[in-house]
């Protein structure tokens, strides 16, 4: 079974990695590929500066669901809005709910409580999946926020569940943590670049995921590889960059024996044409 076959069976695919390594591009590529396999896909972006829509050539989401192709939708999510929605739902008296949401204490809590925003985003994905009849989504692909640590998002529900044991929030977080830990339902895909810092960070993230969460990524994708140039031809800069890419891939391969795919740097601007070209490459490589 190939990596894409396995991803197509999951309900939640979290695409993670540091900022600037092509997470959004990879999430879009995976969205397209899983939709082609007949899955109804929702791509979720958390960054307030939207870019998913550019990759897929739609209008910006502004928080709404946007059609991006057959069986493919995207949505930009504001964690604070999700949390406010929850308050309105859990506090049945409208006036009281509004008072809570408008209070400074509430905002400080939302901004300050560790893991709350992350849990809200994952909780949203969970609910979309479990209200299947209404939303008609088979798989959510989450373009994880570029956090200092890629594990922050995945660790959040567990931490929150532990901290708020016994409360409603705690039991919601515990359900989520169990969902995330189930490899038949959730998968993690790591995006990286074949350069020194991104590879180093990927190696560290692999270790944190293993040690803290017992999670093994389903796939690692190295983006933006410079092309192999025959012999000594071609610009020196590109050849040296390619050498660097290869050395860094070797460093990753020395530690990671799981599925690894590389995607080339293409002479295409961000947009649907690029996503389509990369989707074809990834489908072909499919480790």
């Amino acid at each position, binding site marked *: 079974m190939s990596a894409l076959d396995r991803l197509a069976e999951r309900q939640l695919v979290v695409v993670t990695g540091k900022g*600037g390594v092509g997470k959004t591009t990879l999430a879009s590529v995976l969205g397209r590929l899983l939709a082609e396999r007949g899955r109804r896909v929702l791509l979720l972006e958390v960054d307030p*500066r939207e*870019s998913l829509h550019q990759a897929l050539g739609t209008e910006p989401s502004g928080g709404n669901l946007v059609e991006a192709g057959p069986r493919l939708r995207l949505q930009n999510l504001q964690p604070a809005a999700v949390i406010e929605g929850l308050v309105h739902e859990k506090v049945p008296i409208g006036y009281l709910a509004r008072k809570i949401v408008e209070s400074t204490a509430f905002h400080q809590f939302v901004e300050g409580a560790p893991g709350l925003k992350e849990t809200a985003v994952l909780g949203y994905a969970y609910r979309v999946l479990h209200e299947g009849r209404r939303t008609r989504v088979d798989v959510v692909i989450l373009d994880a926020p*570029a956090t*200092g640590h890629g594990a922050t998002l995945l660790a959040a529900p567990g*931490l929150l569940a532990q901290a708020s044991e*016994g*409360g409603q929030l705690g039991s919601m977080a515990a359900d989520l943590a169990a969902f995330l830990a189930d490899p038949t339902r959730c998968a993690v895909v790591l995006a990286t670049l074949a350069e020194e810092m991104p590879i180093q960070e990927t190696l560290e993230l692999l270790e944190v995921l293993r040690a803290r969460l017992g999670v093994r990524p389903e796939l690692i994708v190295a983006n933006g590889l410079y092309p192999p140039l025959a012999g000594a031809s071609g*610009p020196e800069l590109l050849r040296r*960059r390619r050498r660097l890419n290869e050395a860094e891939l070797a460093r990753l391969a020395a530690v990671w024996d799981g599925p690894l795919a590389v995607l080339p740097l293409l002479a295409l601007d961000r947009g649907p044409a690029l996503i389509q070209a990369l989707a074809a490459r990834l489908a072909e490589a499919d480790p």
Partner: protein
Amino acid sequence: MSGTVLSGSLLVVVGGGGVGKTTLAAALALGSARQGQRTLVMTFDPSLRLKDALGVGEAALDEPIPVPGAGPGRLEAALLDARRTFDRLIHTYAPDAAAAERIFTNRFYRDMAGGLAGILEYMAMERLFEMRAARRYDRIILDTPPTRQAMDFLLAPERMMHLVNNRAIQFAMDPWWDRKGGKNLPFRLAAKGALELSDHLIGRRFLLDVVEFIRAFAPLFEGFRHRAEEVQKLLRAEETRFLLVAGPGPDRVPDAMFFLRKLQETGHSLGPILVNQLHPDPGPTGRGAGPDLLRFLAARDRQGLELLRHLLPGTQEILPVALEPDPPGDLAELGRLFSKLDNATSV
């Protein structure tokens, strides 16, 4: 105009992820030392290669380490570790060892305090302040952390001040929590209500952990508030300049504009913008996949540069910096990178 990239006694290097901030900060620091300034570079998460180039290891986590052969000034490098700084602060401000121990063993501190918005960023500021106070340097260059909310660290001192002024803290400090003292009725009702609500929503233990954390932390607040104010002043001082590093191409422009807006809104002074990792144009000759790709990348990067130029006032310096074939691996290469920065001309 060239040679303007180094000025001010505190340079804060900011920018998004993967734009080469840390390497540029190191090159600037080396250049500064070569110009005879006693210089400190503080960095969060340098690559192994850069650590090798500077000759610093884990020891630099605790104290700045001199970089040998850096020039007539002196260059020292310090690695920032937020958690260690936090721990050390607690040791410094706690009235006694028992008070420090209470914090270290608190579940909330252990598992979650690191996740509190802005705390880790604040720790960078705190360390910066410590280093400035030591007065051993003519110039400090701070490489900023890869933050979640890119500019959290600018707001961090203010947040810290808010945090310690918060009413919730007054609430947590009340002796009622120790089952002591006949408290007035409104307080008892509020406390009971908070406990019941939190019991229902977030679990009683969470609230008790937080209350305990705040109380253990309280003796430190006065020190924190004072320092946070000082740090805020320092960041807005005239001698402090922010250098923005941007990635190449139009796709990275919104990121750069976001940083610029934030810096302006918060009243910080901006130095030149460095647009890094630009692909050079190979010219019209040369056939094949390689030259074609390079021409595409060069044109894309130039577009980004032009877009930024178009969006910013003419007085704003924008310095282009070419992509290095290999990242600098020793001091000589870092020195060459500095010469390029120093000789760059604004577009």
